[in-house]
């Protein structure tokens, strides 16, 4: 795509509308920073803008960046990242807009990641250039804003007014770009789960960040799947995930990077966010889990599980994680040794077996086995045989 104008972008993470308290977050992390099929929504938005020709992208976030996987670390180096407190998010955006305008930008694209939208930047830009307005806001088919706007860089007051009103109100009559393509709002964790599922079903442009080893099963690098584990398509297994024996991953489940599924656990239609460990012989159905925080999408309830044997978060830094593993091994070995020393001995086997155990069963007597009963091979015509299945 050839962009004749100097177009730059500001991406805002956070700044959720005040009318929905505690929305767009899960386990203290904005949904835009949560991983979906191996990459965060922010990561995918940046990638999409870069592919459409925008070189300069400024990210302003009200949360600290989470520990990233390999792809995330590579992308981080290509953008400028500013962390700010929630109250200063829009003010910082205003200042960044001023800086971009001063450094020669002609048009600035401002995106607040309250939704994932697969919009065509060229089409949006053409409409903006053709219209007499200085601001073009993107709305969905119902007319609800998607928090995406193109602003002429020379109109700083216009931009300041728009940013102070959280991209919802323009000073003068701004243009509207009705977007009819794929978009998914990220108001709560259920919508994040829906986005991941639609990506697995290839209903949007999200592609799992891994290799498709079987139809519908994507596995990223360094994932360890123990023999005996079962994965049913569609499913996504992220980077450095460990799935133990007899675990079942089914019905569109996504295990993001550095998650551990202990033996015998069933993950059904669920997402495990990065650095989550789930205990053994459990059922996670229609849930999103991040550390010890579990959200049930059916019951519409979120809770902190206090018991680390059920769900817990892993140490995020690799050296600390290695140290923790070494410590647990160092404590396990002496414990095992002591247990072996002081284990109660098995009861001694009696030297003489009871008479009933020594004597052969009467059923094994040769005449009973050899002599066929008259008519034993044929059944009567009115005999019915019913076989019981399952738990009947």
């Amino acid at each position, binding site marked *: 795509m050839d962009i004749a104008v100097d177009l730059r972008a500001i991406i805002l993470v956070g700044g959720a509308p005040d009318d929905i308290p505690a929305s767009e977050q899960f386990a203290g992390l904005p949904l835009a920073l949560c991983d979906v099929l191996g990459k965060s929504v922010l990561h995918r938005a940046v990638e999409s803008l870069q592919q459409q020709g925008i070189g300069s992208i400024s990210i302003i976030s009200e949360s600290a960046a989470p520990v990233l996987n390999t792809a995330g670390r590579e992308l981080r180096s290509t953008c400028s990242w500013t962390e700010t407190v929630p109250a200063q998010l829009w003010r910082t955006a205003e200042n960044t807009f001023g800086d971009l305008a001063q450094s020669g930008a002609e048009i600035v694209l401002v995106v607040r990641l309250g939704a994932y939208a697969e919009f065509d930047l060229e089409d949006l830009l053409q409409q903006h250039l053709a219209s007499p307005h200085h601001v073009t806001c993107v709305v969905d088919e119902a007319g609800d804003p998607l928090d995406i706007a193109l602003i002429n860089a020379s109109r700083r007051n216009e931009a300041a007014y728009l940013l102070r009103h959280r991209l919802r109100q323009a000073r003068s009559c701004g243009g509207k770009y009705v977007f009819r393509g794929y978009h998914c709002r990220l108001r709560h964790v259920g919508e994040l789960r829906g986005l991941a*599922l639609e990506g697995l079903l290839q209903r949007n442009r999200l592609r799992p960040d891994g290799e498709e080893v079987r139809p519908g099963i994507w596995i990223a690098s360094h994932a360890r799947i123990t023999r005996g584990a079962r994965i049913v398509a569609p499913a996504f297994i992220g980077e450095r995930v460990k799935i133990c024996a007899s675990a079942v991953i089914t019905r569109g489940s996504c295990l993001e990077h550095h998650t551990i599924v202990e033996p015998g656990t069933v993950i059904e239609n669920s997402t495990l966010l990065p650095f989550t460990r789930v205990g053994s012989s459990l059922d996670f159905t229609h849930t999103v889990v991040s550390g010890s925080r579990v959200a049930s999408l059916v019951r519409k309830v979120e809770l902190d599980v206090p018991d680390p044997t059920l769900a817990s978060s892993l140490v995020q830094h690799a050296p600390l994680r290695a140290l923790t593993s070494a410590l647990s091994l160092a404590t396990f070995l002496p414990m095992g040794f002591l247990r072996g020393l002081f284990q109660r001995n098995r009861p001694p086997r009696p030297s003489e077996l009871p008479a009933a155990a020594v004597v052969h069963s009467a059923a094994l007597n040769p005449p009973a086995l050899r002599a066929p009963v008259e008519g034993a091979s044929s059944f009567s015509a009115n005999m019915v045989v019913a076989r019981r299945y399952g738990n009947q």
Partner: protein
Amino acid sequence: METSKPVVVKHVPQRLSLKQARDFLFEIQPILSSDRPQLVFDCSQVLQIDAGGVETLLQCLAEVIKRDGDLKLAAVPASMSLILEMTRTERLFEIYETATDAVLSFSRFLPGSLRLHSVAPMPGSLHHGPAGGHFDQAA
């Protein structure tokens, strides 16, 4: 069929972790060791439960069944219900909306008040039948 045995309703404490569960078990031991105990655990106050708490509930159920009695749960909050589901123990208990329903269920059949274990369909209409395009991988 009316039963002459009394039904004991017991409030489960707010926190049912390993220590509290042990105290709770000690408290109800006389009821559990009676003949054909009929017990209802009112869980409306429960805020937190862990694997130790679930194990205690199972222990109570086992003791009661051993003596030909029954144990039912009532007013189970959503958070506790989620833990029971995660630990695959929800299906072992009869769960009622209120303690009154649970008590009445000992003497009559109350199908409407029994909380059924619902399974929601998957979003995106991925509700395959037995031959619905799943692909298994034995890794």
